[in-house]
């Protein structure tokens, strides 16, 4: 009976394949400059829309397009072009916050999802947006009981979207959180003229700060210098409660992150949702999932605002607290289909038998394996170094666009 949809972040073709392999039900992505990851991720162009929609259909996944920045007058034509092209390509929905986008989508007859950037936090606002959208992403700052109350009230009031079905609710389940209410932070704009609300956040909050008393110049000692850097949201240990209150979609944040992050987070949440459906979800499994989630980029985990924390929990590190890191080794050369062997060239560091590796690529997605045999010119060797061509057994086709990394403990 559990049919909560798992929505994965996609910032590149590598991540798109990784999300599909990880077992997402749907993915979201941005094109051109009108989305919230204009700065941090490679962005697709409008010309990529048919290709992305085709990949989605081929794998039976839904594709949602983010178009959720603040818009100025001169953006309107590009916005309209993006919506038109998305409709032609049969993209499943557009995630929007600005009313110009929302009303244009309605006019064009393409489903719209209300972005978390719209900060929907109460039932009246939910009811207002129901005239435009069948799904609303709630503000990330609500507690789980507030979310539950909204879902209950939707059923009581029989609030329906344009499709005639009961309104659906989506929440964030994993990934980075802001120190401010989403979409209401102006730090980056003030210091670097770089607006977070145009997708160009420079993440000032993730840095170390000293507090100085301007009158006497004394610097205040603060236990944790990262006074504004929120830890990453992780809900896998109470995902059963999220499913139970009737959430329709859970979203993983991270369009700016690497394919290994996309693959592992998607996979863990897929397994967790499946376990909940099968009645086999338990805390032992949660422990394993959390360990796996900690291997990819993270700032340490907390449960966000869902369980009613009054104050945020601040990360104590700069960058990632991931328990593993990847070292770039080299790229793919060719693949021998009959023997299932991939040829690579080492461009940095060295690779030895027993090393754990990952391979990512726009068609391949994400592949993790352990090296058990290395061959150079058909001779078995222990180690290969920079400049050498070598071949190893791989279960999928290797292309020159694929990158090979060594995974080591950090």
């Amino acid at each position, binding site marked *: 009976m559990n049919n909560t949809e798992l929505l994965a972040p996609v910032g590149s073709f590598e991540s798109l394949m990784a999300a599909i392999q990880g077992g997402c039900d749907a993915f979201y992505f941005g094109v051109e*400059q009108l989305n919230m990851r204009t700065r941090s991720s490679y962005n697709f162009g409008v010309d990529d829309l048919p290709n992305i929609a085709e990949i989605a259909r081929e794998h039976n996944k839904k594709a949602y397009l983010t178009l959720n920045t603040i818009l100025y007058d*001169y*953006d309107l034509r*590009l916005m309209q072009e993006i919506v038109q092209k998305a409709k032609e390509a049969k993209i499943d929905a557009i995630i929007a916050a600005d009313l110009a986008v929302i009303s244009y989508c309605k006019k064009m007859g393409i489903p719209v999802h209300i972005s978390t950037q719209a900060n929907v936090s109460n039932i009246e606002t939910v009811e207002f947006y129901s005239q435009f959208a069948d799904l609303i992403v709630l503000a990330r700052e609500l507690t789980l009981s507030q979310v539950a109350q909204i879902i209950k009230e939707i059923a009581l009031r029989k609030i329906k979207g344009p499709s005639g079905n009961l309104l659906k609710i989506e929440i964030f389940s994993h990934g980075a959180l802001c120190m401010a209410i989403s979409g209401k932070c102006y730090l980056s704009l003030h210091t670097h*003229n770089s607006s977070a609300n145009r997708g*160009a956040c420079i993440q000032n909050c993730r840095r170390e700060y000293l507090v100085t008393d301007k009158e006497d110049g004394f610097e205040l000692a603060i236990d944790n210098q990262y006074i504004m850097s929120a830890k990453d949201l992780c809900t896998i240990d109470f995902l059963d409660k999220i499913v139970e209150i009737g959430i329709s979609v859970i979203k993983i944040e991270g369009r700016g992150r690497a394919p290994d992050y996309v693959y592992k987070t998607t996979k863990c949440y897929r397994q967790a949702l499946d376990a909940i459906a099968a009645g086999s979800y338990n805390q032992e499994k949660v422990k394993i999932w959390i360990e796996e989630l900690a291997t990819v980029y993270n700032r340490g985990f907390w449960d966000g605002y869902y369980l009613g924390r009054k104050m945020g929990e601040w990360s104590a590190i700069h960058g990632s607290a991931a328990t593993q890191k990847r070292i770039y080794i080299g790229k793919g050369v060719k693949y021998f289909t009959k023997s299932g062997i991939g040829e690579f060239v080492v461009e940095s560091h060295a690779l030895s038998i027993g090393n754990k590796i990952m391979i990512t690529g726009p068609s391949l997605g994400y592949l993790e394996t352990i090296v058990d045999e290395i061959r150079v010119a058909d001779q078995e060797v222990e180690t290969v170094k920079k400049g050498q061509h070598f071949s190893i057994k791989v279960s999928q086709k290797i292309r020159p666009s694929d990158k090979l990394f060594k995974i080591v403990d950090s």
Partner: protein
Amino acid sequence: MKQFTVTQQREKCIGCNACVEVYPEKWRMSQKDGKATLVRAINKKGFYSTTFHAHEWKAFNLAAQHCPVKIINISSKHD
């Protein structure tokens, strides 16, 4: 007379309007694709450039400083 060249890597523009705000005589927001357009610039492989004289240096430099994605570059050349 000392000449300067201003170059914009237009593809990376996020359309924030900052350059237009500081020097509207030489920057326009394109209604077509929402990106900033440098007036009378020549396009070489995505890099749009034009030359200007010293009296414009302050305004172009301000545009370069205010650009959040740092795609505006100023160089000087003697002729």
